């Protein structure tokens, strides 16, 4: 592993950041593409594509929707592909490297989202002081640079310092901590939805929230199905409250 290759792999990580942060998630940051690019950097394109296909298959269901964060397969796929190609390991070995790295990567993402929540307070303050440019810069520069820097450093250090190091770090963290952080992350989703409700909910409208919740809780209906039911409910309530005036 040359220094230049390690740096280039760090840049592959930044491509993943650009995909989700700057161009509206066009899925360039999926394992299929990142592993291919890592293979290209390491001079074994075909192996990169093959590893990418395996990693993509197991992570097809990992999509970050809303606040729920799946394992960070961006870091997982770049690092696992690198170790597999450099050490000549099998695809299965690559997968066993990818998953702990991905879970570790997700903790980093959780911490980052908390740090950026602090940024938004700085932006609030800047707006109160009529410093709109600063508020914009926090969004487009601070957040992007923080994310890129973290991805770059993590990838660079782990591929440059090697396989053992990563495995050791993953082993050092006790299972109770990783479990606890997962629970905390899930509870934080509750905070996100609670904040959303503060802007929408009132005593009068609580029933509609309850309606959506109960339908999904009891029937596991997906969100499109629920939306259609809610539209029908909205039509009925609209008819009940305004229907008579319409006839006149």
């Amino acid at each position, binding site marked *: 592993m040359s220094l230049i290759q390690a740096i280039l792999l760090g840049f592959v990580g930044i491509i993943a950041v650009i995909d989700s*942060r700057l161009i*509206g*998630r*066009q*899925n*360039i940051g*999926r394992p*299929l*593409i990142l592993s*291919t690019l890592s293979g290209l950097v390491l001079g074994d*394109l*075909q192996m990169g594509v*093959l590893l990418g*296909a395996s990693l993509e298959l197991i992570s*097809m269901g990992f999509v970050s929707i*809303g606040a*729920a964060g799946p394992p960070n397969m961006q870091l997982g796929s770049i690092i696992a592909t690198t170790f597999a190609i450099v050490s000549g390991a099998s695809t299965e070995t690559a997968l066993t490297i990818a998953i702990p790295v991905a879970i570790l990567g997700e903790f980093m993402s959780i911490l980052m*989202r*908390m740090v950026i*929540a602090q940024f*938004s307070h700085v*932006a*609030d303050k800047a*707006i109160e002081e*009529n410093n*709109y440019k600063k508020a*914009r810069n926090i*969004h*487009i520069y601070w957040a992007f640079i923080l994310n890129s820097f973290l991805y770059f450093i993590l990838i660079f250090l782990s591929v440059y310092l090697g396989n053992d190091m990563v495995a050791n770090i993953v082993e050092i963290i006790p299972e109770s*901590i990783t*479990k606890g*952080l997962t*629970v*905390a992350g*899930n*509870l*934080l*989703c*509750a905070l*996100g939805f*609670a*904040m*959303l*409700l*503060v*802007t929408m*909910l009132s005593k009068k*409208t609580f029933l*509609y*929230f309850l309606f*959506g*919740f109960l339908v*999904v*809780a009891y029937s596991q209906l*997906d*969100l*499109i199905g*629920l939306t259609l039911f*809610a539209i029908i409910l*909205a039509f009925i309530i609209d008819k009940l409250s305004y229907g008579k005036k319409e006839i006149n």
Partner: protein
Amino acid sequence: MNTDETITEDYQNCITKKDLHGIFFRSMTIMCSWNYERQMHMGFMFAMSPIVDKLYKDEEEKKQAYRRHMEFFNCTPQTTSFIMGLVASMEEQNAKSNGEFNTDSISMIKTSLMGPLAGIGDSFFQGTLRIITFGIGLSFAQQGSVIGPILAVVLFTIPSVLTLYYGTFLGYKSGNKYLTKLYKEGLMERVMQFASIVGLAVVGGMVASMVDIVTPLEFTSGGTNLILQDMLDSIFPKLLPFISVLGVYWLIKKNVSTNVLLFGIIIVGLILSFIGIL
């Protein structure tokens, strides 16, 4: 766009095609500062800021518009530009109306559209289009062909970017065309009620499907093992997510600061996990 020229005659600070192109490009950065507290809110502010700067010459009005767009926002990136186009047309009408426009309706439109559009956008783009395009790409990649990843990206990106681009204009046009009419005929109230019913129902559904809080507690009584979560599921499924969200909601209503909540929740989560309740 014909509407641009008609507006230009009676109002010089109007939104042009160039401004809408700006929204389109800026909307792609919506996730740049995604965070746990208000999610995509700074991205929304960033995308609206050129229009806000252009429309509002009065400092106080301008500041209020910025505050308005720092509120919680979360949607699918691909469907966000539609909301931004619509909001741009509302901001424009507000700027022209000399205070007659109810600015609360801007926030209401945002919050009521983001739920349904996130539901539709996530299911379509991440749930359907991605599975199809990456499925096609995978079949090539498994043979070791580099066409696989290229095909996956190209097939996904074209419809995705087109939706973003036309969504901006569609949002702006529909806002421009219908909103004035809605206000004059007093229909806005109806639209708001409609949107808030659908929006809240979908948020309720999201709480049930996306907040993943379960308890591993078990009791042994009379030789039988009672798993608490199974009991909860049969009586009131998703009770824990429901209680958690409403509990945090209540705390926010009690003016507990979000920072205290943020760190408090992490600590509570770790403790509850260590003692085996969650």
